[in-house]
């Protein structure tokens, strides 16, 4: 019994050695390598000011209360009635995509930007006027290499340099 146990211990140590000599690591060196994101990635949301019909469906469907309708002051003064437009609060957003799906005119669209840092809490709340300016560009120290995740039979996952971009 103890002999079989000793054999199992030896097998465990050999497995450790096998991995010690195994090939590349699975880590992405993030600021230097950036993963190519798949089609339909749910990143930060961009807003098209002109095609929006102010139906407020996005604010209603939002499960985290991130989308809210804000009074658009200039338009309200111009038209003489209360006009509301959507704004987003990224501290609450869970990137579920309901607002993008429900938008009848496709004014809300997903971008592939997901790596933005903020200094203050207030910066993460976009009222409509800020919201129309589009998503911030992520700042990289150097131009990153683009890599793509590839499924591998033996290792589970590999990263290959992405062609294009």
């Amino acid at each position, binding site marked *: 019994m*103890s002999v079989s146990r000793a054999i199992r211990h030896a097998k*465990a*140590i050999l*497995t*450790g*050695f096998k*991995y*010690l000599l195994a090939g590349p*690591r699975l*880590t992405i060196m993030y600021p230097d390598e950036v993963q190519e994101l798949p089609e339909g990635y749910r990143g930060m949301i961009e807003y098209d000011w002109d095609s929006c019909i102010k139906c407020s469906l996005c604010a209603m469907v939002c499960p985290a209360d991130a989308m809210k309708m804000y009074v658009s002051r200039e338009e309200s003064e111009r038209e003489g009635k209360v006009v509301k437009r959507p704004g987003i609060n990224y501290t609450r957003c869970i990137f579920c995509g309901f607002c993008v799906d429900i938008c009848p005119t496709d004014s809300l669209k997903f971008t592939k930007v997901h790596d933005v840092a903020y200094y203050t809490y207030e910066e993460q709340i976009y009222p409509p006027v800020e919201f129309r300016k589009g998503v911030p560009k992520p700042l990289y120290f150097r131009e990153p290499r683009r890599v793509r995740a590839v499924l591998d039979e033996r290792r589970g996952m590999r990263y290959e340099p992405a062609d294009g971009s």
Partner: protein
Amino acid sequence: MDSLKLLFEPYIFIPLVFPGLIAAFALLLIIIWLERKIAAKVQLRYGPLYVLKPLGGIIQTVADLLRYLFQEPILPKEVDKVAFLMTPVLLFGLSYLPLVAIPVSPTYYAFRSDVSLLIVLALTTLAPIFTVVMGWASNNKFSLIGGVREGYLVTSYEIPIFLSALSMAILYNSLDLVEIAEAQRGLWGVFLNPIAAINMLLLMYMSTSRFPFEIPEAESEIVAGPYTEYSGIIYGLVMGASYVKLYVLSLVYSILFLGGWNPLPSTDPLVAGAVLFSKAFLLVALGAFLRAVYPRFRIDQAISIGWKIAFPLSLISIIISLLLVMGGVSFVGK
């Protein structure tokens, strides 16, 4: 010039430079980095990397040491101050003290005694006392639990490790480390008595709480065991102490089982020391590697390994040695 000559006198050089304080310190800095790096490689990650990137972050430990040095050592209000502050120093000192009795080559040693193996083993057994005292002095339940666990483990590893080491003394008919290493000029001890070798390797990692037996300082259960309340350079000392103890035991193990400085390319003490050090370093690195392989044993599993497996194996190894001696294998030096 005179003082430099004095430095290379064995009774100064051995405790101070090699295999003493400076070598132990350098090994400490390298091995902590190596442990993180090996565990990272096995788990398919990069370990420490961004400090001196071309060499894979090798001076990360130096950065950590500087941080420890400039950190405020916090002294909790209710601790037993003398015990709390003195135990790390004594623990580190006693972990490193046995190095004075370890010879570097057949002609280069601090002192030669008939019982140097016993001296080294006896000095290594003093460290656990201070671990228990540390746990008691910290006035913290986690520290106390860790100290008591260390006490549990001491009972289960101390006897077999002695018996395994002494079985080699029986085989070589000597307690003198120089004679034991010289007797292995042709054949290393690990081939003569493999049971004792495996057993002592296991117990070495058990006594310094390397990973399969990382029971006293179990991170997921008792924050850091006896070291919970320590901070700053005092924590650096207690953390380094177990590595130094492992280094000492690895040197003893190399002399007992791996032929010490054999095969000796030349009679120069420097070459002999390099051979001995590389063997010990490999053993310490193996202990670092086990961290990536094993989860922690339960206390009852570790103690039953100590009493039900290691203790009978050490008795068997003594019987093997006796049979070899009775069978006419004789290594009486010179």
